[in-house]
């Protein structure tokens, strides 16, 4: 069977939902020629020629090594023999951790989740058997039916780009035993390793809460090299249960300079590599960029409100889809933090954070009004509850709950003095009027940027985020206050509390806590 197509298309770049719509860009694909041969029920594909308007004759890059090999050797080199007859390959059974993905806004816990794949943190371990895939061949077909037939014959992973009613491009993928793949999305299908739902943002009220999710069901995939340094790359879109990715007519697509078809997904996958990394001292927010299905990285305009894909892929070597310690991944509705294994080795442990709380408790901080010792929740002391009106001497009584006056940082127990309008309170110690909230320890260690925890005497000076009262170290509070994260589809970039996702106060995003030691 030979299909020859030769036409000229103008593609309208996708329209995105809500404010993330892009201006239309015209990309052209000309003179796409493909022949698909079928023999012995095995696909055999010959020359792919995708010719760009700019380059008169450039062949698709997939044809370079892998494609040619697969072509001449009936795919022998491409598809690892993992069938029931052959012995399963145990490449290295020892557990190797690549890194972690932490969803911002959960502080180490995810309530009401009974799904093991939906957690606030996902650990990427080396798989027993590699399951990575890589593109191997590109086909231009006239109808969806032809595309379906092609995929039926070779039920491996594939990406289908519907360009028009008359033209569909299918990129077939082949197994890659050098990589592991991890898929992320909203779908509960087994193809998704890590289920991520939209994060409730406390202060964005009804705006996003009851709306439809903006996270894609098959949002993105991360492919990690199985050998050190375990380079992890992120790609837009994930394969569904039928191992397919579809980019419909409306999706933004183009042919890159290598002649490969590429595109971006509806709400997009944005990444940001913070300047100076996650645990550096002068880290700060960097440019947010969009990742394509093939892993190309594109600049967005200044804010997310008017994103625009630039036609040329950035040549800056720092702008790529390789995840680094601290890279943020925004799925439009949830933001994920990538922590590499190197970074995690320098990050505080849960034990260290508990030690900090115990140390604070041992100082016996006192409420300057009730003169009672304040108690922070640790593993051994259950959290006092606001509702329990237990006896005044109980450790659980509300007046032992550490509260903070956010204007000044004075820490008190819970009491009713100095209530002003809008729930503001006057601090009994300095008379500054402002919000008064409960202090809650940030307990997700992977969100801490501190590195000097190895010395157990080096306990951190407690700070709290404003306006939520999540308590963390000075370094961690300062770091997150400098990092800008896209919020929802319309809220632009803001700094947020990593423990609850609330937008931080523009002025004074954090406050140093002042405790009154017991007398």
């Amino acid at each position, binding site marked *: 069977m030979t299909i020859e197509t030769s036409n000229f298309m103008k593609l309208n770049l996708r329209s995105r939902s809500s404010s993330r719509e892009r201006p239309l860009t015209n990309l052209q694909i000309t003179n796409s020629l493909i022949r698909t041969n079928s023999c012995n029920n095995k696909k055999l594909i010959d020359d792919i020629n995708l010719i760009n308007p700019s380059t008169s004759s450039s062949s698709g890059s997939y044809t370079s090594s892998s494609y040619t090999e697969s072509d001449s050797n009936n795919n022998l080199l491409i598809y690892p023999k993992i069938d029931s007859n052959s012995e399963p390959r145990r490449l290295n059974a020892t557990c190797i951790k690549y890194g972690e993905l932490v969803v911002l806004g959960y502080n180490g816990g995810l309530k009401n989740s009974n799904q093991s794949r939906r957690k606030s943190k996902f650990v990427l371990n080396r798989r027993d058997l590699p399951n990575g895939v890589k593109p191997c061949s590109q086909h231009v077909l006239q109808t969806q039916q032809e595309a379906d037939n092609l995929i039926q014959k070779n039920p491996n992973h594939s990406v289908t780009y519907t360009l028009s009613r008359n033209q569909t491009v299918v990129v077939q993928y082949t197994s890659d035993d050098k990589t592991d793949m991890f898929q992320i999305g909203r779908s509960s299908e087994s193809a998704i390793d890590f289920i991520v739902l939209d994060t409730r943002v406390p202060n964005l009220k009804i705006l996003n809460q009851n709306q439809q999710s903006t996270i894609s069901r098959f949002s993105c995939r991360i492919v990690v090299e199985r050998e050190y340094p375990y380079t992890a790359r992120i790609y837009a879109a994930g394969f569904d249960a039928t191992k397919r990715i579809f980019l419909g007519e409306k999706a933004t697509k183009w042919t890159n300079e290598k002649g490969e078809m590429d595109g971006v997904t509806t709400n997009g996958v944005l990444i940001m590599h913070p300047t100076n990394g996650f645990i550096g001292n002068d880290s700060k927010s960097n440019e947010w960029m969009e990742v394509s299905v093939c892993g190309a990285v594109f600049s967005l305009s200044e804010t997310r409100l008017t994103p625009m894909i630039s036609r040329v892929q950035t040549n800056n070597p720092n702008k790529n889809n390789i995840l680094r310690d601290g890279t943020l991944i925004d799925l439009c509705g949830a933001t994920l933090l990538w922590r590499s294994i190197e970074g995690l080795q320098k990050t505080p442990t849960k034990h260290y954070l508990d030690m900090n709380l115990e140390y604070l408790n041992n100082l016996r901080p006192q409420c*300057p*009004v*009730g*003169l*009672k010792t304040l108690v922070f929740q640790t593993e051994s002391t259950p959290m006092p509850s606001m509702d329990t009106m237990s006896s*005044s*001497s109980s450790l659980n009584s509300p007046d032992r709950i550490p509260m903070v006056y956010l204007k000044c940082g004075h820490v008190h127990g819970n*009491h*009713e*003095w*100095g209530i002003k309008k809008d729930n503001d309170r006057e601090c*009994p*110690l300095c*008379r500054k009027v402002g919000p008064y909230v409960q202090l809650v320890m940030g307990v997700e260690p992977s969100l801490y940027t501190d590195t000097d925890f190895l010395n157990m005497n080096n306990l951190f000076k407690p700070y709290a985020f404003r306006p939520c009262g999540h308590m963390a170290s000075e370094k961690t509070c300062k770091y997150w206050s400098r990092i800008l994260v896209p919020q929802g589809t319309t809220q632009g970039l803001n700094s947020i509390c990593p423990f609850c996702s609330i937008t931080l106060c523009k002025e004074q995003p954090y406050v140093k806590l002042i405790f009154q030691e017991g*007398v």
Partner: protein
Amino acid sequence: MSNLLPTRILKETQRLMQEPVPGISATPDESNAKYFHVMILGPSESPYEGGAFKLELFLPEEYPMAPPKVRFMTKIYHPNIDKLGRICLDILKDKWSPALQIRTVLLSIQALLSAPNPDDPLDNQVANQWKVNEAEAIKTAKEWTKKYAIDSN
């Protein structure tokens, strides 16, 4: 009267007894733990030097959300203290804060003896005298101290 005293009052009392403020003593009444017998010594280099002034201090039900009630029992010639011993001190009124304590209140009263403030008077007559003829006022204050606050108990 057998109801449990709040931690706050217990702790304050304990500390007042264990670490008394120089020149000030405060002792809870045997029958009422919220009523304190107070003695403040006149600060040196003030017209009240050498005097021992008796006060009463009572903690209302709302304490510490409301200020304690304090009154001079010993007669004193002072522009901010009237004939009935009532004291004009902002922290005992609108500037009260529950972070203040019996100890800090008594320290403030002691400081008021060192620095009378005739511009915010409670006893106009005394205040007037203080403004018009300070030397005469101080002389009177010293006389009253000698008369009422020294060895009169």
